[in-house]
């Protein structure tokens, strides 16, 4: 208790030197918490968006389908199992037919995935209601990123060329009836969505689909017809989770650099302190402190920088972190091409565990960094130290 009291007295007495170290540590503490929360928020948002837009409560694939191999698409179509008719009718299961196609925006050829989706579906946030407009045209919806890349707007017509089930090329014009905002690359990038029945007609695959997306509340428990495979969240989110893990490793490097900077500041402060305060150390010993007590005092002094940083950092930190949670962090332009679902604005996700673990780590690391130079004291000769002679 005495050591804590003396350490606090020394720190406060040291004035600007203390407050500079504390300020650096507090800023780094807030930045680390914020950065971790942003990454967590991003990860949660990415998973949430992927579920809401793409994978729903799970998918049922035709056995040949592999989303990472476009050559499998040719054979990835099968008659939709009749056992799903009721769920499809009430929007709980969304059949999707996928084929490769080409469009010619601005005279350039562009390969796309042409996807037909049941317009009654309620499992995805896709605005498929727009595809039901009564018209002679084939309606299509595209994501804003696709619209930007192709310079297409609502009301524009674009020529689409595809191959039907027999491999015969065909082409027609489709009308863009809506441009939607979506952060999931697998739904937005290079994709054009048309009504399922239109695409089945275009490809001569009546009643067929490549995959079925299940509603988040719908649990399939029956036996699947031959040639269809159930893909659950664990399977569908595997790539995403791997990417999140890799991203966390990358984020940790930034975090480690920040921590190293903070620890370097504390280490320097401690080394300088011990170098400059030899006379004071000798006086402590003359007054009856043991060497280990002096080491403890200096270690506590160093560690207290982090305690003060946590306490004082809370004053600007809590409002700042709260403000960020409300306002979110606007991602820089171009970050949507990173391959991971990414919104324009990311909202940091704070948790008690995150905040406590970061604070504990900062306090423990600071204590260790403070202890290392303080060990020099235990080798000091008190009679030399009293005179302030460098040792």
């Amino acid at each position, binding site marked *: 208790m*005495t050591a804590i*009291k*003396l350490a606090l*007295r*020394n720190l*406060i*007495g*040291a*004035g600007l030197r203390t407050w500079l170290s504390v300020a650096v540590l507090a800023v780094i503490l807030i930045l680390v918490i914020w950065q971790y929360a942003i990454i967590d928020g991003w990860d949660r948002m990415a998973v949430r968006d992927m579920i809401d837009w793409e994978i729903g409560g799970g998918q049922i694939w035709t056995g040949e389908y592999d989303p990472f191999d476009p050559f499998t698409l040719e054979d990835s179509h099968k008659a939709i199992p009749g056992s799903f008719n009721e769920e499809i009718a009430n929007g709980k299961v969304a059949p999707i037919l996928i084929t490769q196609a080409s469009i010619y925006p601005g005279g350039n050829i562009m390969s796309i995935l042409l996807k037909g989706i049941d317009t009654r579906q309620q499992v995805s946030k896709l605005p498929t209601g727009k595809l039901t407009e009564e018209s002679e045209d084939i309606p299509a919806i595209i994501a804003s990123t696709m619209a930007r890349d192709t310079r297409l707007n609502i009301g524009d017509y674009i020529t689409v060329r595809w191959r039907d089930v027999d491999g015969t090329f065909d082409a027609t014009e489709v009308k863009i009836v809506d441009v939607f905002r979506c952060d999931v690359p697998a739904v937005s990038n290079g994709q054009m969505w048309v009504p399922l029945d239109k695409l089945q007609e275009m490809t001569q695959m009546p009643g067929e689909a490549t995959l079925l997306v299940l509603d988040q509340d719908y649990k399939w428990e029956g036996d699947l017809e031959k040639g269809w495979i159930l893909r659950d969240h664990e399977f569908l989110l595997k790539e995403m989770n791997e990417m999140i893990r890799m991203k966390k490793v990358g984020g940790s490097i930034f975090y480690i650099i920040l921590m190293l900077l903070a620890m370097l500041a504390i280490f320097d402060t401690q080394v300088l302190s011990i170098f400059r305060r030899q*006379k*004071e150390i*000798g*006086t402590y*010993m*003359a*007054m*009856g*402190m*043991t*060497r280990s*007590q002096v080491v403890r005092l200096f270690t506590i002094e160093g560690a207290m920088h982090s305690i003060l940083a946590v306490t004082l950092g809370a004053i600007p930190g809590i409002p700042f972190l709260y403000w960020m949670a409300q306002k979110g962090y606007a991602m820089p332009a171009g970050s949507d091409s990173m391959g991971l679902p990414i919104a324009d604005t990311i909202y940091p996700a704070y948790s008690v565990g995150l905040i406590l673990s970061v604070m504990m780590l900062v306090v423990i690391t600071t204590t260790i960094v403070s202890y290392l130079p303080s060990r020099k004291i235990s080798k000091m000769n*008190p*009679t030399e130290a*009293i*005179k*302030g002679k460098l040792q």
Partner: protein
Amino acid sequence: MENNAIVKINGLVKRFPIGGGFFTALNGIDLSFGKGEFAGLVGPSGSGKTTMLNIIGSLDGPTEGKAIVLGQSVGELSHKKAARLRKENLGFIFQTYNLLPVYTVFENVEFPLLLLDMSPQDRKQAVQEALAWVGLTDKVKSRPAQLSGGECQRVAIARAMVKKPQLVLADEPTANLDAANSHHILQTMENLNRELQTTFIFATHDDKVIQYLRRKISLEDGKVIKDETS
């Protein structure tokens, strides 16, 4: 004297390694100090005064011989026991005051009492009493940088005396002070010595100090050449 001695030194030798050899700072010292003495180790620079004071203060140990301070043989004490001896029974006054620069006058004087785990109320009372002895009750909130040299040394005296130690060791306490301040602090220490029966041992070559000493032990080349009591 021998029986009431609080410091007994027998055949004390202190050597310091220098280069490949040794420098003998103290060579066969036999001395004792009784309770309430106002004594001084007198001699030129390099005569061994400070070395002797450091050994009596258990900050250093003898190479040969014995130094028994308050019944404890300094050379045989562990670091912890030596620190305890200093904490409980010894007070130090240094030539350069050695006040803690970031502490106020009150906090500087309070420091030894914090190490003794005294209650806040007792500490406050003791500090006020010590500051009254040295006439600095109006400077409790000042920091050392705001005080004159004489005032700093008076704070150092209050700090050494606040726990009412049995022995105070003062190393050249007036070296950085003018004549008026030197006399002032010496009178203060003399009064405390008479009032509290605290033993004072000085290391000095300052005539102003020497004239106050009731016992003068002259050292030269690490040996006692004269020991006179007035």
